[in-house]
């Protein structure tokens, strides 16, 4: 039996990789994928804890997170398409209206 701590560390590493990806990539779609990566890391932690505590609730939560992720992917990608239509780019550095 593998110690559950390993799963948690794996989850933490995945999360960090996702976070770093969000920070260093400039392609909006890739950033979006990195966010999915972070969500998956959290899912892993949830399932791990569910196993640890002999409870089903963690798995149910993962189910809901997947629902939200699906909704988010649909809307987020639609936004990216809309942005691409307006600015002809998905480079987030060119989408910098929020400055002084």
């Amino acid at each position, binding site marked *: 039996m593998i110690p559950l701590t390993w799963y948690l560390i794996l989850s933490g590493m995945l999360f960090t990789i996702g*976070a770093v990806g*969000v920070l*260093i990539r400039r392609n909006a779609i890739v950033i979006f994928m990195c966010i999915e990566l972070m969500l998956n890391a959290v899912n892993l932690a949830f399932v791990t804890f569910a196993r640890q505590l002999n409870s089903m609730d963690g798995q149910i939560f993962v189910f809901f997170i997947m629902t939200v992720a699906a909704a988010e992917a649909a809307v987020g990608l639609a936004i990216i398409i809309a942005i691409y239509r307006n600015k002809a780019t998905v480079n987030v550095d060119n989408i910098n*209206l929020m*400055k*002084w």
Partner: protein
Amino acid sequence: MPYFFGCSYLDLIGFVLLFPLAGTVINGFLGKKLNKAIVGIVGCTAIGLSFIVSFFIFIDLLKFDPEHRVFEKDYFTWIGSGTFEAIAGLQVDPLSVIMILVVSGVGFLIHVYSVGYMHDDDGFYRYFTYLNLFTFSMLLLVLANNFLLMFIGWEGVGLCSYLLIGFWFEKKSASDAGMKAFIVNRVGDFGFILAIMLIFVTFNTIDFTDVFHAAPEHLQTGSFIATMITLLLFVGAIGKSAQIPLYTWLPDAMEGPTPVSALIHAATMVTAGVYMVVRCNVLYTLSPFSLTVVAVIGGATALFAATIGLAQNDIKRVLAYSTVSQIGYMFLACGVGAYITGIFHLVTHAFFKALLFLGSGSVIHGLGGEQDMRKMGGLKKYMPTTHTTFLIGTLAIAGIPPFAGFFSKDEILLDAFTRGSLLLWGLGAFAALLTAFYMFRLLFMTFYGKSNMTKHVEEHVHESPMSILIPLLVLAFLSILGGFIGFPTASAINSFLAPVIGGGHHGMTDGGDLHHVSNGLMFSMMGISTGIAIIGILLAYLMYIKQPDLPAKIVGKFKLIYTIIYNKYYVDEIYDATIVKPTVKTSFVLWKIVDVKIIDGFVNAVARIVELKSEVLKLFQTGYVRNYALSILLGGVIIIFCSLVLL
């Protein structure tokens, strides 16, 4: 207090307020789209229904024993803060019932009158909105069961008075008069607010019943606090009821439409001060000094305003000064402790003064807007109904038996004599002489003698329509018979109001001791006051009918005095020089130096500092989302790090 379960009209007291408010809302929001007939019907119906409810409440109240005629209904707690509590509650007792009957009754007649009078005005719906709002505020004022709610009504009538005086705001004089009324009233309101605060500090409550219960035990007769409270309240009354020295706004208020003058500046609003003094009679009785002040100011105003009335040529201004003078009488009565007599005169005055104002409105209407009496004359044959009713009103105010004004004025003079002093009686009596004189001067100049109208006006002069004449007739009827509610030996109003006047054991109040006056004294006083009135009338007859050139001769002889009186003792000019001008100058200094340089300078300096800091801080706002995200991660790391180290 007996309770009526099931249907008691007393429980419907809220509707007295609700109807005018509903009228205001309907006319205010929809009036622009409705046609004039509907606006008029809504406005009149609202007040009419209110009057009907008031009447049934009156009938209901009569079913109780005189001692139990007090009914309170609390709706909700309006303000609750620590021990301070202001409840939105209404109080029905003989005093407030009389007031709501007068306000809604006379108000209803004036609304009906207004439909005819204002028919051609573009602001018709606006006018009725204000008028309904005014009636609502006035009813709230008299029905409130605590000082703060009363103050709401008090301010409400002040606001409506401002709106209605300045109703024709295109005219500069009208909007100026509106502002003047508002600002002068503000001075009085300030006193009223201070009085409310002092009452709360002293009694820890602002509820009428509680305050008046606590007052006799709490305060010594003649104590400083009692005197302060009553004097401050009286400052409020002076402002609202146009007494010396704050009366100047009332004559100017004649810039408003004539029915407004009738409603606000004769029948109801200006009597609010009298009502308030009578409502607080328990407090006033505790302070003989304040009562003396009230009596002296009342008597002085009665005489002072009457003298000004002698020399005015504007028909409405004469009536305005007579209003000031008559309210002076009411305060005179209150000041000698005859509170009920004050209310009695308030009621009769409401009838005949509304009648006189509406009559003058009818004249002005018939003459196409002319207000100068020197350009009238001989109107009797053109406007017979107006003339008859106006004559009745004039007889009533002059104090000729058996018209309404006779009974109340005579009783005031009697009270002034028996409880006050010879001086107070003298003030009142002399003012009565002048009143009779200038009122008949007005009557003669307007309706008798030869016509001084211009050709153009004379061709168009006409009797007013029915909606104007019917209220006149009703009011004339009331002016004839209204006095009998206070018939000297069997005064209905006396016994009805007696329970309201608290602390009968102080011996300074009405109660039963009126009847201690011997019949002989009473009848001789009646004779004297009637005689005074007749002398005044004869003088007027002599000067304006018999020998129309006599006034000019007298004026020539007493040029100086005439000029002073004609210019209203230059009070407005004195106020202007001593108060208004210095205030304006000080304000100018405050504006240019204190406000612009110091305060604005400080504010601008703060803004400048913020701006400079922001110049630096804005560099962090790069516009790159990834940069912001980095900050989020950095923050997260720092938080986790801190919790690791610290926990």
